[in-house]
C-alpha cells in the first residue's frame, strides 16, 4: 500500500517538469542552455590558452617554460571550487579597480563572463598538457622537413603541426570537454543560474527532490553521451589515412 502511494506521489511530481509555469521544465532548460554556453566558452578559451601554453612549453625560452610549469602545476593542484572563488573575486576586483582608475564607475560582471573566464583558465592548464603531448607525438621528420623547406613558424603550425597532432589530441580534448560540462555545475556555488542551481531551486520550492535531480542528471547524461559520440566521429575523421593505432 505504501509503495502504491509512493508511486502515485512520484507520478504526480512528474507534472512539475512541464514547460509552462506551474511546471519548472522551462527553468531547467534555461539552466541547461546556460551550462552549454559556459562549457563552450570555457572550452574555446581553454583551447586557445592551451595551444599558446603548449607551444610555449615546447619552443619557448627558459623563463616562459618555467612560468608555464608553475601555471599548470598550481591549477592542477588546487580544487576548481577554490580557484573559481579566488578568480571570481580577483577578476571582479581587478576589472573594477581599472575602471575606477580610468574614471568610470563600478560594474557588476555577469556570471556568464566570469564563469567562462574562470573555467577557461582552469581548462587551459589541462589543455596545455594534452596538446603538448599531442605535439610531441607528431613525427619529428614532418616538422624538420617543413623547416628545411623554409616554412615560417606560424605557417608550419597551421599546415603541419596542428593538423597532424589533432588525431592524437582528440581523445584528451574529448575528456576535457566532458570535464568542462561537469565543472559548470560548480558555478552553482557562486550562485550562477546554470542547470544544477536551477534544479536545486526547483527542487527546494516543490520538495520533489528526486524528480528534479534525476531529470537534471538525465539532461547531463544526454549531453555527455551525445558529445562523446560526436567526438568519436571527429576522431575517426581526423584519423583517416593514418595507420591504425592499437593500444
Amino acid at each position, binding site marked *: 500500500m505504501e509503495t502504491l502511494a509512493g508511486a502515485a506521489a512520484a507520478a504526480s511530481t512528474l507534472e512539475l517538469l512541464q514547460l509552462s509555469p506551474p511546471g519548472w521544465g522551462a527553468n531547467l532548460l534555461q539552466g541547461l542552455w546556460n551550462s552549454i554556453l559556459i562549457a563552450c566558452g570555457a572550452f574555446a578559451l581553454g583551447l586557445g590558452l592551451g595551444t599558446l601554453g603548449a607551444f610555449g612549453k615546447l619552443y619557448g625560452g627558459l623563463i616562459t617554460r*618555467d612560468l608555464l610549469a608553475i601555471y599548470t602545476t598550481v591549477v592542477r593542484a588546487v580544487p576548481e571550487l577554490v580557484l573559481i572563488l579566488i578568480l571570481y573575486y580577483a577578476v571582479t576586483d581587478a576589472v573594477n579597480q581599472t575602471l575606477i582608475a580610468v574614471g568610470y564607475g563600478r560594474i557588476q560582471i555577469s556570471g556568464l563572463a566570469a564563469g567562462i573566464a574562470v573555467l577557461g583558465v582552469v581548462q587551459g592548464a589541462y589543455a596545455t598538457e594534452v596538446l603538448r603531448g599531442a605535439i610531441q607525438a607528431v613525427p619529428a621528420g614532418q616538422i624538420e622537413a617543413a623547416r628545411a623547406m623554409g616554412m615560417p613558424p606560424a605557417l608550419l603550425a597551421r599546415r603541419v603541426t596542428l593538423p597532424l597532432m589533432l588525431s592524437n589530441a582528440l581523445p584528451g580534448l574529448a575528456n576535457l570537454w566532458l570535464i568542462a560540462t561537469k565543472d559548470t555545475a560548480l558555478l552553482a556555488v557562486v550562485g550562477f543560474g546554470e542547470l544544477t542551481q536551477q534544479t536545486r531551486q526547483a527542487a527546494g520550492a516543490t520538495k520533489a527532490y528526486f524528480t528534479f535531480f534525476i531529470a537534471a542528471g538525465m539532461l547531463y547524461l544526454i549531453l555527455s553521451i551525445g558529445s562523446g559520440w560526436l567526438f568519436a566521429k571527429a576522431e575517426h575523421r581526423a584519423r583517416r589515412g593514418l595507420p591504425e593505432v592499437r593500444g
Partner: protein
Amino acid sequence: MRNFWLPHRIVMAALGVAVLIWCVLTLRWDWLPNYLGLAAMGIWRTIWLLVLSLVLGMMLAIPLGLAQAAGPRWLAWPARGFCTVIRGTPLLLQLWLLYYGLGSLFPTIPWIRQSDLWPILRQAWPYGLLALTLSFAGYEGEVMRGAFRGVVKGQIEAATAMGMPRLTLLRRIWLPQALHRALPTLGGETVLQLKATPLVATITVVDIYAVAGRVRQDTFITYEPLLLLAVVYMAITGIIVLLFRHFERRLPSRVA
C-alpha cells in the same frame, strides 16, 4: 638537481620569496590564531573523508572493473551503466541528490527513524562520504576495467594450466598485476578525488574549505583565507604525489 639553480631560476625564486614576504607583511593575518583549531579540524576532516572514500571506492571499483572486463553480460551491463551514469553527471548533482533526496525521504520512514543508525543518518557527512565513494568507484571501475584487460593473457593461462583455483588466480596473479598497471593512473585520480572533497562543504560538512568560507563570513576578509586554502591543498597534493612516487619506486618496474 645540479641543473636546477640556473640564473633565471634564482631570480624567480627571489621574486617568489619577495612576494611571500609582501603577503605576510601587508595582508591581514590577525584572524589566523582564532581559527587555528577549527582549521586543524577541517584539514583532519578533509583527509579523513579522502582516505575513507578512496578505500571504500577502491573496494567497489575492483568488482566493477572485473565485471566489465571478464564478467557475464548480466553483470557487465549494469556495471558499465553505473560507470557511465557516474562519469556523465556532475558530482555536485549526485551529492545534492543523495543529501536532499535521501535526506528528505528517510525522516518519512518510521523504522529508519527508530533504528540505531538514525543519529548518524541525521548528520551530513554520511551522504558526503557516500557520494564521494560512489564517484570514485565509478571512475576507478573504468580504470580497473582497462587494467584487468591489460594483463597479459599468458599469465592467466599459465595459472589455469597449473590448476590454480579461480579465487587464488585473482588474488595472486590477476589483481596484483592489474593494480600495478593502474598505479600511475590511480595517483592522478587520487589528486582529483582530493579536489572533489570541498564539494561536501555545500551540504554543511565542515571541511577545510568550509572553514575558509566561515572566516570570510565572520571577518569579511576575502583573499587571505582563500590563498591559505590554496596553499593547504597544494601541500596535500604534494604529499599524495610523493607517496605514490614512493609506492611506484618500491614495486619492480618491469612487468614480467
